[in-house]
């Protein structure tokens, strides 16, 4: 069974701390994504990566950075955590689906609920 694993389900951090959220996939997918989920706003794309050492900004990259040193691991970094970064963070990976359709199906992790106090 394919899997995207996020290292922590719940995390509480203090304002100003540097926070690392880890995501590992075992499907040899090329593409990985970080979203945050907030009530009324749905899932918003923070950063994504098409390949090792590559990264692209999503819609809300401010206050975040990412690292992808290995194909299976994509880390989200909060350089200096703030209370407005309290949220559910979801990691996903994808690979082109079959049939040459170019359609990319996402597999999501279970999420990390981060609280910044």
């Amino acid at each position, binding site marked *: 069974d394919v899997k995207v694993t996020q290292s922590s*389900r719940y995390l509480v951090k203090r304002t100003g701390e540097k926070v690392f959220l880890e995501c590992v996939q075992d499907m040899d997918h090329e593409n990985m994504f970080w979203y945050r989920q907030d009530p009324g706003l*749905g899932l918003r794309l923070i950063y994504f990566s098409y390949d090792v050492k590559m990264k*692209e900004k999503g819609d809300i990259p401010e206050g975040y950075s990412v690292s992808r040193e290995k194909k299976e691991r994509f880390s989200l970094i909060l350089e200096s955590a703030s209370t407005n970064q309290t949220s559910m963070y979801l990691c996903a990976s994808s690979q082109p689906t079959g049939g040459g359709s170019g359609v990319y199906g996402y597999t999501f992790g279970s999420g990390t609920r981060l609280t910044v106090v």
Partner: protein
Amino acid sequence: DQQVKQNSPSLSVQEGRISILNCDYTNSMFDYFLWYKKYPAEGPTFLISISSIKDKNEDGRFTVFLNKSAKHLSLHIVPSQPGDSAVYFCAASVRGDNDMRFGAGTRLTVKP
């Protein structure tokens, strides 16, 4: 600016009846649309999709309709079951862009 909008935050239906979840989009470049289902404490899981060359796609109890001129899609679930109670996210992408945009979600409650 949200490119994918789900204007109904919640929907409640009786078991056995039809559930209709709606989604609107603003980016005319979107050509692939998906619905994801999310239970509490789990990540979203893929439910059904449709490409812009079609106006309907059916998979068992689930049917997605696409109206390109109105930039609107809907998900029909019939008959609805209590196990369908979840948050449903509409998503869209431009084929090849590989970065999907999601709506805010609609919480569906199916009452026994």
